[in-house]
């Protein structure tokens, strides 16, 4: 029997473009004795489209999912950084009486204030549970990339230092890998603009990846489907001035845990990435 039981809110991305994040999350949690119960009837958090259209809409959509979570009576774990951020913003909003009234009115429900929402990264960072590493990621240099939404604003997410977070770095070090000391951990990759302004996403993501590359990173670890799609899917369109491609694999941190637990590349859906990490991992004897 699992020791830890969480309600699980995968969010839209993990059901489509980021299936491998969902797959690896479920596998790793199972291996670590964490039971995930996917919320029945969860809905989209509205992402930035909702809150930049209307404050209330941006709070009411996550609130609907929070309501379902509240009824489950279990703490809610959220892998997607965007969903996590929107849920946390909603929880912050519920603390204000006027805002809570509006949210309740929009839902025709009464929401409590004590709904526990945790990011998957926090649950798996090795402090809540211990990770029995069987295949240490020796020799792997990882650039841990946190993006914006996990850490900012600090008052809302209260997860880690906003300029130099170290939670994921500590985790990959525990897995036997080396984490590089770099300065773009929380610089934005272009967020939700890949369809509307792909030019900007390429500029911003390239800058992040090229610093990681120049410092000798073998791969970048992420905890956000949006960051992943920008850094991975768009990467083949990025070239340096002399035409060099980066060819830097982008892995979900859950996939790194999976590898260290001895799960196979196939199980962890490593092939779903546009930048194939397998040659690099084979080189290092890790896959």
């Amino acid at each position, binding site marked *: 029997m699992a020791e830890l039981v969480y309600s699980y809110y995968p969010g839209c991305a993990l059901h489509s473009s980021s299936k491998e994040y969902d797959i690896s999350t479920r596998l790793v949690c199972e291996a670590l004795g964490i039971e995930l119960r996917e919320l029945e009837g969860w809905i989209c958090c509205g992402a930035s489209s909702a809150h930049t259209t209307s404050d209330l809409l941006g709070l009411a959509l996550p609130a609907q999912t929070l309501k379902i979570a509240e009824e489950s009576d279990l703490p809610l774990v959220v892998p997607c950084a965007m969903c996590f951020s929107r849920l946390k913003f909603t929880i912050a909003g519920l603390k204000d009486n006027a805002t809570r009234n509006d949210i309740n009115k929009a839902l025709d429900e009464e929401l409590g204030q004590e709904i526990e929402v945790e990011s998957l990264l926090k649950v798996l960072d090795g402090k809540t549970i211990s990770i029995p590493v069987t295949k240490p990621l020796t020799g792997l240099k990882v650039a841990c990339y946190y993006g914006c939404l996990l850490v900012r604003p600090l008052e809302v997410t209260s997860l880690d230092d*906003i*300029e*130099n977070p170290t939670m994921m770095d500590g985790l990959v070090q525990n897995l036997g890998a080396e984490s590089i*000391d770099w*300065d773009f951990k929380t*610089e934005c990759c272009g967020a939700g603009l890949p369809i509307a302004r792909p030019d900007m996403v390429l500029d911003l993501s390239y800058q992040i990846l090229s*610093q990681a590359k120049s410092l000798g990173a073998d791969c970048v670890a992420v905890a956000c489907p949006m960051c992943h799609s920008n850094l991975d899917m768009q990467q083949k369109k990025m070239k340096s001035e002399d035409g060099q491609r980066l060819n830097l694999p982008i892995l979900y941190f859950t996939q790194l845990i999976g590898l260290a637990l001895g799960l196979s590349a196939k199980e962890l859906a490593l092939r779903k990435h546009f930048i194939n990490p397998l040659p690099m991992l084979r080189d290092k004897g890790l896959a």
Partner: protein
Amino acid sequence: MSRIGVFVCHCGRNIAGTVDISTVVEAAKKLPNVVYVEDNKYTCSEVGQDVIKKTIEENQLNRVVIGACSPRMHENTFRKAVASAGLNPYLLEIANIREHCSWVHSDDKEKATAKAIDLVKMAVAKVARHQELFPKQVGLTKRALVIGGGISGIQAALDIADAGHEVFLVEREPTIGGRMAQLDKTFPTLDCSACILTPKMVDVAQHPNITLLTYAQVLKVSGFKGNFEVEILQKTRLVDHDKCTGCGSCWQKCPQKVASEFDFGLGNRKTIYIPFPQAIPNKPVIDTSNCRYIKYQGWEKDSKGKKPPECRICEKVCPTDAVDWGQKDEIINEKFGAIVVATGFKTFDHTTYGEYGGGRYPDVITGLQLERLMSASGPTEGEVIRPSDGTHPKTVVFISCVGSRDDHIGRSYCSKVCCMYMAKHTIMLKEHDPDIQSYVFYIDNRTGGKGYEEFSRRAQEEAGALYLRGRISKIYRDGPKMMVCGDDALMGRPVQIAADLVVLATGMDPSDGVVELAQTLNISYDTNRFLIEAHPKLRPVETQTSGIFLAGVAVGPRDIPDCVAHGSAAAVKVVGLLSQDTLTTDPMTSIVDPAKCVGCFMCEDVCPFSAIYRETTRDGRPVAIINETLCTGCGLCVASCRPGAIDLHGYTNQQLLAEVVSLCR
């Protein structure tokens, strides 16, 4: 029978602009015992005071109420005016209709007027119950204590000593000199800091009226103006300074190096050390937390790890046997008539700024670290090099307001000296290496001061420093370069500079421990932990606690000339106090009615000043008696006295209740 006169002040438009004075005057005329009411444009002016004096005489007034500014402002002024008419100065009450009324209720004139009437009514009710009070004369100790041996404290100590009074100068560090000793040059004249400071330090050491206690700390203060009793901790140096000649053999031979606090970790010192070559006293201390022999001794007790060498080299090389391993901390008890607090500042800890690397980037340094690099007696002997690789920087970026004007890190104030020291640094860097290009990111270039703006022009026109208006948001590393991301706010474009060295113009934070010291001394500090003056303009070196004075940056950011002026100003106040032969005590003290006292001595327990003692009455009952010289008039005993035997002159139960009753009825 009281005959009360009421004077309502317009304070120009300050009160009259909000409060309808004529309504207040009419209302005051109807109050019990009021026989005369008048309003004045400025009651505190000479004319206003003359009116009070004349009116008291002409109308045989025996109580006075003044509706004006806060009693904290002019109570003494008006007491003197009342006294000049031959009335006891304590038969006066002030209704605060400015700070507590017109200035805070300017949005509702009707309500403000009604409140002003109430405040006058309360004062009239209270003053009717005032009694004549008479101050006493007490002797005083003609000796001053100066806390803090930076430039402000040094100046204050020298000026007091030159005026012929004894001074104890207490400094926490092993040397005096403070922050100024760490500077290479000073703006706007580029005098060598050591050249102008060290002679003053030597004067302190040699002055017959000055007792210098370095490596020492004030622990406890009791007593009051004229007679403070102070407990000072003299930390052990493990070196007998009476025997030591300061020859330097010990610190040359000591094998244990640690990062130098004086050089902000840019260089090393030994564990037996003087902080810098011109230190005063020029005799060393042993740093007990790093000394090998101390570790050797401690090791035998808990036996962890490898046994360290016994060492004791300093002891062996000392020609005068001055090293004294048995020396202990010592407590010194002294009496002082006055105290000057000159505790200065430390530079803001920039590790709070994660976006500037949070202290992780070796080539991002502070202004004071740059001073140490430029100083000929510094860790690099005046060579400006990058701490990371020892190369000579060619592109240097300065970032202003690090730890200043930033609410986000809890510091909304301007540190006042940074704009000028950045200008100084750019000029000095150019002198060190003409190939250096400096960039200065400023928010506002504040150069108020004699010759300051001209100096800033010189930085830009002669030293070629490029000034860019904008706050830096991030520094990231790109190979050996520090990439500095800013906004050229004048052009309206984001800008990046690839720097070899970044200098943070860190602001001023009050010194560590200042809050504890302020609490020991019973003086106030603000939200930024800077000490509060009795009045920001008119009493800039006094505190609300008589006999305690302030000097230098402990009060708020200021530069060297201002610190020197401030130190001298505090000294004048001290000299003024110590030049008196007796002091007048405040008569607003507690008094016991022995007939009512049941001898429970609750009052004795609560009195923080041990001003209550026991006496036996003629009928053999033990009763409490107040020592009026020790009593500070806090009234704790009054509130603790169950049978109601104690009362407080000036704030009697009757007076305070009269205020309540007059207001409610």
